[in-house]
């Protein structure tokens, strides 16, 4: 489905090698489990994990709906916040100087340490989860946007000013569109952070969500179900990253075009063709 996203047709080996290694590892894992080298209760076999995945599908779907809701809400708030703050910080340099160090410091807070506090402050509902996701997702997005704004071609901005454009017009026509690539690179990182962030926040308090479910099955020593959750989280993250790539593809039609080869293409001035007389 997503093969269209590739610029060049990938060579078959690009896909075959990683696929072969994954299949090989899973086979090895299965062999180890079947041979009894690893006790079943410690490490369930891949087939058992798949069976658990199938059996607990209704619960998994229920809990992933909660986790996804939190992740999307957190991402949405992060995007909005990153967009507004990055724009303001680009426009007012004092804001940049004041807030940028603070943004960096916010990234040094250990997520696992702050999460219980957030739960303490905001209760067991969705709010602390969303807050934690914003804490981890906002930074890569804001930095990607800021970098893109600040690296806009100064000649282009001068030209816009010479044409009488104000700051808001420069953002609208030059800086925001130029930041699309940067935004999507930031988003690719943020979507996987969002899922992991939601799960961690759920571990530390809550009644539903994949994190809560994970703790529950761990306590009952259902390691096969535990692995099923891990598998599901991986699948969700991969899908979201793919979705981001696809959105980027849709949002940037101009990157898919190629220069028309002939340098003279379009050199037919319909109005009044100028014919150059060749002297013999």
């Amino acid at each position, binding site marked *: 489905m997503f093969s269209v996203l590739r610029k060049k047709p990938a060579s078959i080996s690009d896909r075959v090698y990683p696929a072969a290694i994954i299949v090989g590892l899973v086979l090895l894992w299965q062999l180890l489990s079947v041979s009894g080298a690893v006790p079943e209760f410690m490490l369930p076999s891949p087939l058992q994990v798949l069976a658990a995945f199938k059996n607990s599908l209704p619960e998994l779907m229920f809990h992933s709906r909660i986790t996804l809701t939190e992740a999307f809400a957190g991402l949405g708030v992060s995007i909005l916040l990153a967009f507004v703050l990055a724009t303001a910080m680009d426009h007012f340099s004092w804001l940049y100087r004041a807030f940028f160090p603070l943004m960096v410091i916010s990234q040094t807070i250990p997520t696992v340490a702050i999460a219980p506090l957030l739960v303490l402050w905001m209760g067991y509902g969705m709010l602390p989860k969303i807050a934690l996701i914003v804490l981890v997702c906002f930074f890569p997005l804001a930095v990607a946007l800021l970098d893109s704004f600040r690296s806009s*071609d100064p*000649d*282009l901005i*001068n*030209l*816009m*000013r*010479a*044409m*009488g*454009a104000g700051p808001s*017009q420069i953002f609208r*026509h*030059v800086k925001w*569109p*130029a930041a*699309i690539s940067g935004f999507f690179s930031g988003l690719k990182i943020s979507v996987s952070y969002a899922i992991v962030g939601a799960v961690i926040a759920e571990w530390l308090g809550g009644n539903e969500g994949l994190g809560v479910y994970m703790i529950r099955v761990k306590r009952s020593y259902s390691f096969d179900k535990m692995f099923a959750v891990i598998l599901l989280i991986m699948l969700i993250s991969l899908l979201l990253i793919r979705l981001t790539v696809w959105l980027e593809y849709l949002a*940037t*039609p*101009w*990157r898919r*075009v*190629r*220069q*028309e080869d*002939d*340098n*003279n*293409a*379009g*050199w*037919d*001035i*319909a*109005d*009044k063709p*100028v014919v*150059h*007389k060749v*002297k013999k």
Partner: protein
Amino acid sequence: MKTILETKSITKKYQGRAVIEDISIRLQEGELVGLLGISGSGKSTLFNVVSGLLMPEQGKVLLEGEDVTGKTGLVSYMQQKDLLLPHKTVIDNVSLPLLLKGINKKEARAQASAYLPQFGLEGKADKYPGQLSGGMRQRAALLRTHLFGSHVALLDEPFSALDALTKRRIHEWYLELMGHLGMSTLFITHDIDEAILLSDRLYIMTGIPGRVEHEIIISEKRPRHLEFNTTESFLNYKKEILELLHL
């Protein structure tokens, strides 16, 4: 002839050092005036002052007699790089100055598309700049400059990024076009042949800080053809200029 643009003894300094000094030039209605000089003589700085992007330490810029020093948005300005926005189609790129003036998108597109054939961009309205050849991109940049709607255009080395053959073609087309549009144009170049071929008058900029010491009138009538390049009068102009530039 009416003087449309004038600079009065402009001096611009960067960090205390003058880049251009005491520059007084004028541009008359419908005229094509070249500004020729070696790199570093401050030609682009002068343009940044005239376009209002930079404030000079001394001197004034007069547009139709009115003091417009430091005011942007009055004269059309085009640089060596085409500076087309990669994410906009040709039609949206060229109609950008109209949009900036508050004209709605549909109207702006309609106005702009009327000019596409004249600028050799017919059928290219919905292409992205990345799809165009260098010559086409430069013509699109020229059309955007034209649609800005000022009677005065500043062109900073408009053709220097083009290969020699494309440049010859674009010269011939441009000379033709100028007759139709009736714009008054001040352009920077370091290509002596180009300067003689295109200009009605030429200012020679020399030294550091840059000064305008000489003015040359090219009396050959416009529109000229490329054959002018090989005539004796052309070579005489060239000789004179080379001497003035101490080359």
